[in-house]
């Protein structure tokens, strides 16, 4: 279970020191508009610990080489480092086999791999695909493109006013034509943690294949793909303390093996001739061309960072921030929190009556506070709430309640100013 009771929270938090954590993040120690930076845009991208930055530096000053086919020492080192990250990912998400871990360029790329390769091969006219109304565009548009091409039908699980999926509707939607269910594990706009285990079981009963969009989940929750029993799991390194340009698609071997390749090129082949080209084994079949070696190597340090701090400590600290923020924000006159699911990751979206969301962002930036404003790539969700966008503060392990106080103070000034 990914949810922590207040009791275990206290226990796990004893050895956790947020100030020590902050020291590991060089970017935090700067002034923005003459005030200390407060970075609350973690759902967009997290900051990187020094170990990750140093790993990049070390890679390019010591080991840089193209991988897999090289015989020389640098190529050996680079290959070993690259594959070490694959192993670490396998362990982080508890995949059964290391070959089930495919490196992509991000969650978006991972989902497109599935729609292009699995989708175009196994989803036919009249088949149904289920997503939800709280999906990120990256888990909407690829399915729209696929369904349009194939004449398949895209069905959308509605959300409640609190920002939870309407499970009864989902159950009604599922039928023997349901071939795929693609669902966000934790919503980037609302923070909602969806009851994915139950949803996966229900989908499997109908023989449907399930992908989880883990972009917002992987840095915050304990992920066990075997326990979840999802068929695919997609996420981005840059949202979990790693560099930009690296993502992962986990897939069950059985599915990956029967899927055609995604992109063609170097690495993904066994033999090329103009008469007959044969493809490589997984995971390489899906990794055409020179991969993002440097960043993948450095990503290992992000995973190690998470493991060192401990998933539990992270979850507890972020849960405290979330609870604190919810309470504090509700005191701001005219402020309304969008997304009040019972289980949430540390994301708070809100609107303030009569204040344009973009203005909130700009005025907070003037106080050194970085939040995100807009539709957060979830326009259909905004349409449901009949709003154009929200202001969103999303917290990470290095944020503090004092920073939340500053946020609230800033918002209070804005509200006063706007009257």
């Amino acid at each position, binding site marked *: 279970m990914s949810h922590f009771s207040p009791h275990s929270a206290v226990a796990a938090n004893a050895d956790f020191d947020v100030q020590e954590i902050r020291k590991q993040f060089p970017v935090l120690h700067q002034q923005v*508009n*003459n005030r200390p930076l407060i970075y609350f845009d973690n759902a967009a991208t997290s900051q990187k610990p020094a170990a990750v930055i140093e790993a990049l530096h070390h890679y390019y000053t010591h080991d840089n080489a193209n991988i897999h086919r090289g015989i020389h020492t640098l190529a050996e080192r680079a290959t070993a480092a690259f594959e070490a990250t694959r192993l670490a990912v396998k362990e982080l998400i508890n995949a059964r086999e290391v070959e089930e871990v495919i490196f992509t360029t991000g969650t978006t790329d991972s989902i497109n791999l599935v729609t292009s390769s699995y989708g175009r091969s196994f989803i036919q006219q009249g088949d149904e695909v289920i997503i939800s109304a709280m999906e990120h565009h990256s888990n909407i548009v690829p399915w729209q493109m696929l369904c349009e091409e194939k004449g398949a039908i895209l069905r959308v699980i509605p959300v409640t006013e609190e920002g939870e999926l309407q499970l009864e509707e989902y159950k009604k939607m599922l039928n023997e034509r349901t071939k795929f269910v693609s669902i966000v594990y934790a919503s980037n706009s609302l923070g909602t943690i969806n009851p994915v285990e139950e949803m996966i079981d229900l989908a499997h009963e109908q023989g449907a294949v399930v992908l989880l969009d883990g972009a917002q989940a992987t840095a915050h929750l304990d992920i066990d793909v075997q326990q979840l029993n999802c068929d695919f799991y997609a996420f981005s390194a840059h949202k979990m303390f790693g560099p930009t340009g690296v993502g992962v698609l986990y897939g069950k071997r059985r599915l990956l093996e029967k899927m055609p390749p995604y992109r063609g090129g170097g690495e993904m082949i066994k033999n090329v001739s103009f008469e007959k080209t044969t493809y490589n084994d997984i995971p390489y079949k899906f990794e055409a061309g020179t991969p993002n070696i440097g960043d993948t190597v450095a990503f290992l340090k992000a995973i190690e960072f998470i493991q060192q701090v401990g998933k539990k400590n992270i979850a507890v600290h972020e849960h405290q921030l979330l609870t604190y923020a919810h309470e504090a924000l509700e005191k701001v006159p005219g402020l309304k929190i969008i997304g009040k699911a019972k289980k949430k990751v540390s994301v708070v979206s809100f609107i303030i009556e009569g*204040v*344009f969301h*973009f*203005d909130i962002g*700009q*005025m907070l*930036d*003037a*106080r050194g506070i970085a939040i995100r404003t807009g539709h957060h790539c979830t326009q259909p969700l905004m349409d449901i709430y009949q709003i154009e966008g929200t202001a969103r503060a999303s917290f990470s392990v290095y944020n503090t309640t004092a920073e939340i106080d500053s946020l609230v103070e800033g918002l209070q000034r804005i509200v006063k*100013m*706007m009257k």
Partner: protein
Amino acid sequence: MSGTINEIQDEIIEEFAILEGDAEMTNFYIIELGQKLPPLAEKHKVEENTIKGCQSKVWLITAPEGERMTFEADSNSAITKGLVSLLVRIFDHQKASDIVDADLYFIDKIGMNRFIGTQRSNGFAAMIKQIKLLALVYRDSKEIVKTNATDK
């Protein structure tokens, strides 16, 4: 009307100088300017009066006044309203030809882009473009009238 385009620009530059580049004060000042701009009647807040390319909604209407033009504007964003209010202040009651030729040096002088960011700067540029376009059309239509008058 309180002066030429450049006189008003210089006024604005002076006013902003008092804020000493403080981001928050500058934002608040821009909002205050917007609050002073009379709101546009609801009937004018329609698609055809919208300026494309802004994050927020901006409506702008213009009316002729001999060689000169008048402008009114509004926005659903307090900051954008403040920004467009600066343009109304500069261009309202000016000659169409002066508007077309205007060099808006105040933007760089007060370091606007630094306070409002790229997206808003692009929006601001879109507003200016729209005003200049309206002025160009108006000026040319006037010139055609003039030319016609001479012809007779």
